[in-house]
């Protein structure tokens, strides 16, 4: 195992209980700098809960989270954002009647210089220019920066949400099923966007997906959760779909990391 300071994200022994349901039962996770890391698992395995822990939306009962070697205890989404973690939720959280630049800067609008800025005036020119530069850097297919986001295609909306995360994230970008609702061509461009976040920004990406072919095409490594525990972490080049399905369903009791997988009660 690598030294923890070399890891972008290091999660150890995180537990989270909802009443009688134990969503996370001492989960571990290691994400290396600049890698696309897929998070896999059957429904109810605890993927979304783990993402929420890292996003500060859920406070764990036990366990530790280190970001770039620094221990963190998030008590709210603002804490996670301050630590450089940005999340693209399934609902995208876009304002459909606003143009892309206003969505990219929502809640973090640049102020005009001087007195006007202190009075709350927004520098729309700077917003539009920075948004254009950023979207171009990610090679996104958004042309009309004045159009309402609501009038765009599903893939373009996804691109705006992903671009916003990439714009503000400095430690980790997380995406919960970004391609679930998209067609073939749009899925392709979102996967390309994820690669660009890694290649242009050097940021690690944690990607929840049910689509194994997509995962094999874009991810560097993956972690499989089952019943709130990690059962497998591996390089994509070292595993097959069958391995992953076995790990997810529990058919495989011995994981390639050598750990004993949890038996369902």
């Amino acid at each position, binding site marked *: 195992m690598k030294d923890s300071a070399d890891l972008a994200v290091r999660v150890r022994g995180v537990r989270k209980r909802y009443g009688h349901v134990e969503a996370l039962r001492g989960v571990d996770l290691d994400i290396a700098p600049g890698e696309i890391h897929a998070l896999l698992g059957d429904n109810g395995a605890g993927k979304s809960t783990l993402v929420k822990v890292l996003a500060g939306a859920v406070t764990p009962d036990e366990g530790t989270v280190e970001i770039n070697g620094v221990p963190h205890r998030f008590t709210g989404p603002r804490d996670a954002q301050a630590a450089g973690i940005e999340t693209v939720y399934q609902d995208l959280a876009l*304002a*459909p*009647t*606003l143009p892309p630049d206003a969505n990219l800067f929502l809640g973090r*609008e640049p102020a005009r210089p001087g007195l006007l800025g202190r009075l*709350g005036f927004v520098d729309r020119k700077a917003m539009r220019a920075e948004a254009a530069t950023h979207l171009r850097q990610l090679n996104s297919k958004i042309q009309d920066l004045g159009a309402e986001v609501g009038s765009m295609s599903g893939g373009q909306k996804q691109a705006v949400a992903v671009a916003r995360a990439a714009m503000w994230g400095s430690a980790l970008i997380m995406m919960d099923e970004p391609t679930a609702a998209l067609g073939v061509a749009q899925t392709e461009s979102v996967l390309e966007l994820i690669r660009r976040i890694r290649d242009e920004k050097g940021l690690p990406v944690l990607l929840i997906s049910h689509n194994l072919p997509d995962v094999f095409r874009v991810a560097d490594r993956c972690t499989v959760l089952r019943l709130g525990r990690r059962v497998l972490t591996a390089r994509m080049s070292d595993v097959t779909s069958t391995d992953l399905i076995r790990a997810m369903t529990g058919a495989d009791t011995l994981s390639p990391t050598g750990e004993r997988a949890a038996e369902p009660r």
Partner: protein
Amino acid sequence: MPRPQRLSDATILLLLIAIVAVFSIVTPAGTFLSLSNAESILLTASQLLILSCGITFLLIAGGLDLSIGSITIFSAVVVAKVMGALAGTAAQAADFHYPNLGVAITVAIVCGLLVGAGWGAVNGLLAVKLRIPPFIATLATGGIVLGLASVWTNGQNVQNVPLPFQSSFGLGKLFEVIPWSIVIAAVVTAVFWVVLSKTRFGLHTYAMGANLEAARRAGVNVRRHMVLLYVGTGALCGIVAVLDVARFSTASITSHSGDALSAIAAVVIGGTSLFGGRGRISGTVVGALIPAVLQSGFVIMDVQPFWQNVAVGVVLLVAVYVDQVKIRAQERT
């Protein structure tokens, strides 16, 4: 896809220009198209415009206020009563002698604005803290506030307003040219236009109406923001109350009961979406002018001015239909 918002702004402006053009042609020269008639149209529209500025913000943010007429009436009662009580004794007033006029006017205006803002805060807390849908919350407060004003005054107009308030302010003009009511409506409109289109507060107002959860997650204090919008709208009612008392030298219990619906109509005709997230003050200005222009034209043409209501209703239906078509077009993508 081009910005549909622009299109609707232009359409409604063209409609206003067309109405003005038709009236200018069919009325005798120098009647409809004259400076004095323009002044009278603006004077008629000024109160509606002030209230509509508040409604524009509320509708864009996903709120609604049906109580603005009642709050205006209540605030007017406060303004008239406070001014009358502080200006001088009854005996002095009978001689048109008001020893404390300056203090009375100042305190009355401040009280009017504060009471308006206070009722706005009540609306905001009901809608935000108790999560009562604003339609119901403000319908209820509208009834309560009007009821209280009526009980307080026994349903009578408040009469003891010091006369100089009307003669110097209510009928007075800036530079002897522009009535104060129009000046104040212009200033309010300019301020609201700047805030909505240039500031962070304005952007957040749009974002809340477009997707409240997204705005909240982006760190916008959506509850405080919404309460502020209701408070601001209530304060605008206070301003209108002051103008009204100044203009008519009385606080009338019946005068403003239709204001909420007129303002919502004006705002929606001006292109603001009933579904939130979309709208402009420039559109609201046009929307607030249309009823006054129609009324003036019909009066000059000796047509029953009630046709104004019919025409505004038709335009409102068209505006809402266009709005819905836009929303549906967006949902299809």
